[in-house]
């Protein structure tokens, strides 16, 4: 019995044991996404005879004789289904990887289900949006300003209400160009490549280490090679000897060279032992199972405390400190900083109140909906007889990945092309080379296309996490609320490899400290190896961990002297003219107050919280019952708008014969919305609309170089390059038009689609022809090096209620004010803020990658690692400060990582205000809240200092 897919009976029959998702994708239905393999995320939702099911846990054989509808079949005859239309109109997506499943689910809703989205959408996870735009899309309603009074405040409340103009330039809610492709399931992510384009595609699976620390004595691959379908097995004997770092930075020397493609020493459970390449995933898995490995077990350490103990096994002890750039390999210390500005002893002596506490942040995972994956193949390079390697990868950094592959495999860069399709979320996790080296090695050797796709389990156990930080804080204040000293002792756990260990440690100790004026600051920080899953880049890049500690401590200081915490912050936070200092007595030479909106952000949050309190009072809800305690809390954060030590971007922009524009940019699109921003920046400079600027990106063939989409650089660095190219092109267009119309260039003005030359109006298509006749190509390039840099700010406030009898926490109000400079696209920027809040709430309340006593990750599926679902995320009020940055393109600043940073401490401070209990460890789960309050209430605990 055939399976009918979108109205057409398919000839193919599923394999026994195959799930419906892989079967549908094999038939070319790439709109069906793999998010979790486990029925948890809903990205693979399809209809079987009209009933929505998760196709990843649906036995494909059960679909025989039934009719399956995928996202490709939801619309008919080019007409979008109403749900698709609503997702486009409300932009109910960012990366778009969850969107098809979201819509296939929502398309089945009746009114009752729409009225209860927390329940109806609990089987659909989104990591980007924070669900607000999804709610609007499902219900087909635009959101209005959160509060009628809010718009009258100094900063404008974000609104996508009916009065929005849509001229397609700076400041407009220009829709994402990929909208239609995303909602129809036709946007092509990394592995959405039709089989006919990659004949002979092979699949790679990894055998991973069962031991936390071991040396491989021998590997026997004979049985694996006998498995039908297995083509090759790669071990450390086949891998390049070159050490590198999976972390990707403009300067590769920023990270230690401590990693091999395949190593003979295992340093964490889950490390690559061998790679099996086969005709099918199943054969590759069978091959991996058949490999016999003999290990010599080594002593392992799982915490920085153990790793720093004298005599602890040195995880990278055989490496040379200088050449590998490891601070002290014998002591497991990758990087360290020790600094003192002023004299903290004297500062504490002058304090009338001192707070001391140890704060601990946990391992968390990015959970981008698209797992790490890549495909490599060889193609003619263009030179006779020469081939080059092509890698299609889910990457935030295609150009840096190319550099790394060139270095590891000793190839010239022009023999490698790295390209990213649409990327299904990143959050820092894809600022690494975690799969590209494997498929490159296999494709170079086998001369066939090779693909690897990580499972969700592999994401949790063997990719990267946020760095756990242990932060000892000692902070002092005078009675009138002036900080006298700040002392920090920081230990970060980088896991088995040092990718991003130095950068995260240094960055963490940067802006978190620099935002406060304090003459005496002391920092001792170390990044430490342990035999656990490696930590890497994660949204916030160290700042979120440090800000959790410092903003909690600042709150305690304020409470300690009886001052309102926001008042305390206003007294101590930097103002324009103040040096921004952390671990160096001199300020960073290229960081300036390009604009300053921190004071506005504090005021916006304070006012919004007061309005919220009034709302509850007016509604008679200020007392919630005998067991409910309520409180408010807030936190602030600062971030440099560009990463240090160079961040480069290049844009090529040209006029096309039809009068529209083509922009080639390097930076990647993974839901951050930079494509729209680039189109808007170019459109503004070219006096046209964003829809007339087509942006192509993430391909090393397109432009010279781009450092990549990390450090919130998509707008302020890459966008600057695009703006410069557009401004240059505008000049050239006017000059060609002036020559053609024989008027001074000064009299030529660009208008939408045309140039007004005095009385005459030339269509851009005519200008294009004129340029052809003049022998001129109307194209321009823009380059930007990421310096000078500015600072951006975020302030978050919460009102919470805590049930002291159960530990249940309810968020009554969530407010964030952001200083993003001139907001290029308010709807998108709001989405970035909302998404950052949601991700941070997960980290603050639930998420934790747990590692057991043997070093094994135990939270290896989404059911054990709860990321916020629709029901968990409150609707936040989002406000923007009104500033205009001198450094950023058209006054804009970065706003992608930073909304995440102040959320966890603001929540901890609100809980402290409600209950009197200080939570110094994340996550602050309900069970821990309950137990802490119970302890605090116990008589023995009443004697507190």
């Amino acid at each position: 019995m055939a399976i009918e897919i979108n109205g057409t009976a398919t000839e193919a029959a599923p394999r026994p044991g195959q799930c419906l998702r892989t079967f549908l994708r094999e038939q070319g239905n790439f709109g069906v996404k793999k998010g979790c393999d486990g029925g948890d995320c809903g990205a693979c939702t399809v209809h079987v005879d009209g009933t929505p099911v998760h196709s990843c846990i649906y036995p494909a054989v059960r679909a025989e004789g039934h009719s399956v509808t995928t996202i490709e079949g939801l619309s008919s005859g080019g007409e979008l289904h109403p749900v698709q239309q609503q997702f486009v109109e409300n932009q109910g997506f960012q990366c778009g990887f969850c969107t098809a499943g979201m819509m296939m689910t929502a398309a089945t809703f009746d009114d009752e289900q729409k009225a209860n989205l927390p329940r109806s959408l609990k089987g659909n996870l989104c990591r980007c949006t924070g669900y607000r735009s999804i709610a609007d899309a499902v219900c087909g309603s635009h959101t209005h300003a959160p509060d009628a009074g809010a718009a009258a405040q100094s900063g404008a409340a974000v609104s996508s209400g009916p009065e929005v103009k849509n001229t397609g330039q700076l400041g407009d809610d220009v829709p994402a160009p990929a909208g239609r492709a995303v909602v129809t399931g036709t946007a092509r992510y990394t592995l959405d490549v039709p089989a006919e384009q990659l004949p002979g595609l092979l699949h790679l699976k990894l055998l991973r280490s069962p031991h936390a620390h071991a040396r491989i004595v021998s590997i026997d691959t004979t049985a694996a090679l006998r498995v039908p379908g297995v083509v090759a097995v790669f071990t450390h004997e086949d891998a390049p000897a070159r050490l590198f770092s999976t972390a990707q930075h403009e300067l590769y020397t920023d990270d230690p060279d401590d990693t091999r493609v395949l190593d003979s020493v295992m340093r964490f459970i889950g490390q690559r032992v061998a790679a099996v390449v086969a005709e099918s995933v199943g054969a590759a898995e069978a091959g991996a199972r058949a490999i016999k490995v003999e290990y010599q077990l080594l002593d392992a350490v799982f915490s920085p405390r153990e790793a720093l103990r004298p005599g602890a096994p040195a995880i990278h002890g055989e490496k040379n400190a200088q050449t590998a750039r490891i601070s002290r390999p014998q002591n497991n210390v990758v990087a360290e900083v020790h600094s003192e500005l002023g004299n903290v002893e004297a500062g504490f002596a002058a304090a009338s109140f001192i707070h001391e506490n140890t704060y601990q942040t946990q391992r968390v995972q990015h959970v981008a909906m698209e797992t790490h994956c890549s495909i490599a193949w060889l193609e003619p390079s263009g030179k006779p007889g020469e081939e080059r390697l092509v890698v299609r990868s889910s990457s935030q950094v295609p150009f840096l990945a190319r550099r790394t592959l060139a270095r590891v495999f000793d190839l010239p860069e022009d023999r490698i092309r790295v390209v990213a399709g649409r990327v299904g979320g990143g959050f820092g996790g894809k600022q690494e080379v975690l799969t590209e080296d494997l498929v490159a090695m296999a494709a170079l050797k086998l001369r066939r296309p090779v693909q690897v796709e990580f499972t969700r389990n592999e994401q949790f156990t063997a990719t990267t996490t946020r760095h756990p930080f242990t932060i000892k804080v000692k902070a002092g204040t005078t009675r009138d609320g002036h900080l006298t000293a700040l002392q920090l002792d920081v230990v970060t756990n980088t896991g088995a490899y040092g990718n991003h260990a130095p950068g995260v440690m240094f960055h963490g100790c940067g802006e978190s400290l620099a935002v406060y004026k304090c003459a005496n600051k002391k920092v001792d920080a170390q990044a430490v190896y342990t035999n656990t899953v490696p930590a890497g880049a994660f949204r916030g890049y160290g700042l979120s961990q440090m800000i959790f500690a410092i903003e909690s401590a600042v709150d305690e200081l304020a409470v300690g002297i009886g001052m309102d915490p926001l008042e305390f912050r206003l007294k101590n936070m930097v103002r324009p003219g103040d040096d921004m200092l952390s671990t160096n007595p001199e300020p960073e030479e290229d960081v300036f107050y390009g604009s300053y909106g921190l004071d506005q952000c504090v005021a916006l949050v304070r006012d919004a919280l007061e309005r919220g309190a009034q709302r509850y009072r007016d509604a008679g809800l200020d007392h919630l019952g005998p067991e409910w305690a309520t409180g408010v809390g807030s936190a602030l954060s600062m971030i440099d708008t560009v990463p240090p030590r160079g961040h480069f971007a290049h844009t090529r922009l040209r006029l096309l014969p039809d009068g529209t524009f083509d922009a080639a940019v390097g930076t990647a699109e993974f839901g951050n919305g930079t494509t729209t921003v680039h189109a808007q920046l170019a459109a503004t400079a070219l006096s046209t609309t964003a829809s007339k600027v087509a942006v192509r990106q993430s391909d090393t063939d397109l432009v010279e170089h781009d450092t990549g989409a990390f450090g919130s650089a998509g707008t302020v660095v890459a966008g600057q390059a695009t703006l410069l190219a557009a401004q240059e092109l505008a000049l050239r267009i006017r000059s060609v038009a002036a020559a053609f119309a024989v008027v001074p260039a000064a009299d030529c003005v660009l208008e939408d689609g045309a140039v007004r030359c005095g009385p005459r109006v030339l269509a851009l298509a005519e200008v294009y022809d004129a340029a052809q006749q003049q022998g001129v190509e109307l194209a321009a390039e823009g380059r930007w090096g990421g310096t000078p840099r500015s600072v951006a700010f975020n302030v978050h406030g919460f009102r919470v209620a805590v049930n002291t009898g159960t530990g249940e926490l309810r968020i009554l109000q969530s407010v964030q004010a952001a200083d993003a400079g001139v907001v290029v696209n308010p709807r998108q920027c709001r989405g970035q803020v909302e998404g950052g809040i949601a991700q941070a709430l997960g980290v603050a309340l639930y998420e934790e990658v747990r590692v057991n006593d043997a070093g094994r990750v135990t939270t290896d599926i989404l059911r054990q690692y709860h990321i916020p679902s629709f029901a968990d995320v409150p609707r936040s009020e989002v406000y923007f400060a009104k500033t205009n940055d001198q450094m950023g393109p058209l006054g804009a600043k970065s706003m992608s990582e930073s909304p995440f940073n102040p959320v966890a401490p603001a929540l901890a401070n609100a809980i402290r205000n409600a209950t009197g209990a200080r939570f110094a460890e994340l996550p602050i789960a309900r069970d821990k809240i309950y137990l802490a309050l119970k302890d605090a209430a116990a008589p023995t605990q009443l004697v507190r200092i």
Partner: protein
Amino acid sequence: MNTIESVVATTDPGQWRDGDAWLAGGTVLFSYGSPVGSEEPLKRLLDLGQAGWQSVTVSDSGVELAATCTVAELYALPVSDAVAGRNWPGLDVFRPCCDSFVASFKVWNMSTVGGNVCTSLPAGPMISLCAGLDATATILGRHGSSRTVPVAEFVTGDGKNSLAPGELLRSIQLPASALSARVAFRRLSLSNLGRSGVLLIGRLDADGSLVLTVTAATKRPVQLRFAAAQVLDAGQLAAAVERSIPPELYHDDIHGLPEWRRDMTVRLAEEIRMELLDPAGHGGPFTVSGDFWPPHATSQQPSTQPAFRDTAKQKEA
């Protein structure tokens, strides 16, 4: 699942051999797949999909659920014609139990009552329901034999049960006596609509005896029974919980610390005692604590809920 060589449609335990697994809805089997690290990969699926078992059979003796009854079918039962006219207050806990799944309504279309019971996780809500209503499981053996066991005893630990290799759960009988009882339901989770950390079902039987069934908090179901004549105050109830559940029986995983689970078990047990035994509680509405029931109808997102007033009223009531 890449190790499966064949799918065999059968309901005969005699066909079972090593490397086989019974396939009901498939939602658990397929979600764990066949990871490379697994020792003994599965080779065949014995497919119950064509068993043709009547999902729900209602009679004067109670409700019989086939193992292959889907959660969606179970959710529909309390408002279906099949039970129309039955005075079975026990039906009130069916839907809260379904909503205790962390899995969504879409998964309910495939996942089965039997599958959830046989997976035997502490938070398995079908275990909560069946144990709470003193249900009995009928199990088919490999040589044509058949045995019955109370569901509360069927599950023996976290992911453990009394099935021998090849044995097949055929059906579950929910007795009319339990369905006729007044019931109470309490549940707490670490996240909104999240996995159950503590789930208690209380039942006041016709003879006046009180049955408390603890699941999710404990590694396996625990039942406390109090005779009608027994005077039961809050202190005695708490002491009985302490006696019945040793500390090591509380489940310890990311969904709740054992100490929290213990205190919440005592707390929810007392709430149930008050609801079912306190004279003031008689005739009151069927209430469910926690954040998820009855479904919020007014807003998409919880922080904008004006639901506190309702909650407060419920507490007063």
